[in-house]
């Protein structure tokens, strides 16, 4: 009975995915090198934000340390490649390392929540940043490390468009895996953790393991993004992995709509691409962006994807208010 509505929503989502994929594949025809680079960056930021959305949006654990995991993935690949290891071996190593460190970062979350957890994760990010910057023998410090583009099945990915396709594939695979996870009974329990941990515990959901895994899987996604980011920019230094990038990643999730599957896609687009479009506005860019974020949070804290629902709810409220006012006045139409 409810099947038709279900499939209608599915059809809409499918149509959206097809249109988005077509648009993304066609985009390089209309873009210069820099535009293709920006879209690659968007894809990887989205991957990292999808991870944070799982941690924050679905499991309800605030994290201000997501850029640190990006850094762990990027530096793992860069350091291993410098030592002569193939990118395709460095990649799983970086992702596993991010997963393991993410698991460890989950432990404070078992003890504290909200702003305490925010500061615990922020402190963690500061720590990782300092290690990257100061352990010059390993990371090159502020001088950074050069990273070459990898080869795929003997085909060099030096071309921007080829690497862009790789980034899109990484995004598609990550999104698919997270989607499958979230719609499994196992993944639904993440949302229970966010809605009400006591309620979840009363049902026998292993709140401890879920909290740890929410961090670990979120971190692993950032590890994937970081591993592909290093060859994208060809050179890494500590700056993209500090506190400010972490806040931008958080902003991507919040702006798009935490706990919504396509939220990170939209949020990453706005945070990554808007600065470029608003470049004409120069110094005013940050002012415009700041006002936009403040207005969004005040008007619709559920993020951009929640705006249609919010508008519909406001319309309905206005209609019913008008209806009751008319009823009281009696004769008014």
């Amino acid at each position, binding site marked *: 009975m409810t099947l038709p509505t279900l499939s209608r929503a599915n059809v809409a989502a499918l149509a959206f995915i097809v249109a988005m994929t077509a648009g993304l594949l066609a985009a390089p025809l209309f873009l210069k090198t820099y535009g293709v680079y920006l879209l690659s960056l968007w894809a990887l930021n989205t991957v990292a934000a999808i991870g944070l959305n799982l941690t924050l949006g679905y499991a309800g654990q605030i994290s201000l340390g997501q850029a640190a995991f990006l850094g762990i993935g990027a530096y793992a690949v860069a350091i291993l490649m410098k030592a002569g290891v193939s990118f395709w071996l460095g990649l799983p190593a970086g992702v596993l390392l991010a997963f393991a460190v993410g698991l460890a970062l989950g432990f404070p979350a078992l003890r504290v929540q909200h702003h305490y957890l925010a500061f615990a994760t922020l402190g963690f990010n500061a720590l990782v940043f300092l290690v990257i910057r100061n352990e010059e023998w390993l990371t090159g410090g502020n001088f950074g490390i050069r990273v070459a583009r990898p080869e795929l099945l003997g085909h060099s990915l030096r071309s921007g468009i080829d690497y862009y396709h790789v980034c899109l594939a990484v995004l598609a695979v990550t999104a698919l895996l997270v989607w499958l996870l979230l719609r499994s009974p196992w993944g639904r329990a993440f949302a*229970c953790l966010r809605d009400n941990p006591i309620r979840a*515990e009363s049902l026998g959901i292993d709140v401890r393991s879920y909290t740890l895994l929410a961090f670990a899987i979120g971190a692993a996604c950032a590890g994937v993004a970081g591993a592909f980011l290093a060859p994208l920019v060809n050179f890494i230094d500590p700056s993209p992995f500090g506190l400010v990038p972490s806040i931008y990643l958080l902003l991507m999730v919040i702006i798009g709509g935490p706990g919504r599957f396509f939220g990170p896609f939209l949020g990453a687009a706005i945070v990554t691409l808007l600065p470029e479009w608003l470049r004409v506005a120069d110094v005013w860019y940050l002012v415009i962006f700041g006002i936009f974020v403040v207005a969004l949070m005040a008007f619709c804290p559920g993020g951009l994807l929640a705006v249609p629902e919010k508008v519909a709810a406001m319309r309905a409220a206005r209609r019913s208010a008008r209806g009751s006012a008319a009823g009281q006045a009696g004769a008014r139409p």
Partner: protein
Amino acid sequence: MAEALALADVVAGYGQSTILNGLSFAAEAGRITTLIGANGAGKSTVLKTVFGLLRPRQGSIRMHGEPIGGLEPRALLARGLVFVPQGRNLFPTLTVRHNLELGGTTLGDRALLRRRMDAVLERFPRLRERAEGQASALSGGEQKMLEIGRALLLEPKVLLIDEPSIGLAPKVVAEVYALLRGLAESGVSILMVEQNVRAALGMSDAAVALEQGRVGLMGPAAQVLADTRIKALFLGGGLAAAG
């Protein structure tokens, strides 16, 4: 008669404050035992402590003779002790079916879970009709039935249920009570918390009145209901409001 649950000198509380202060009582197997007491007397705290959401500082808690004090909810669920907390306990954005499924988290066996779910939906036809709809679209009574149905998924031996009648129309309360009565007849031991003293004691076997973290009065439900001291225990008008 066998004791499903037995508390002896239990002390428990939150942080610095002590709410249960040497509480001792037993709930007999296959019976409905109802905990009553003023607002804030600690009724919910008793259930939370038995269910392991709160660790007892002292004393012992036994289920069918075995000590369970300090065990986590997961371990208790596996032993057949389930808890339906006060208020609304569904996940409103999930469907009825998915809410129900969450009750089987500790079952671990997909085929068994599916069989049990079918059995519960068989028992509650109204839930079966709405199985694919959002849980938040159910009426208050249907939501309570879903919560109880979800608890039954584990085929519990002992059911803890906190104020099942709250916010429900009298007719729906009667339905919920009839369901609980039926469960007790089929051998499930029930420890219930209620504010609605008259109606609740009318369908219970035994009653325990809490007073300052201890038992103020305890005995067969009819006897407790008839006791004049019960009025003194509910200066706030618990009984007056119920009658």
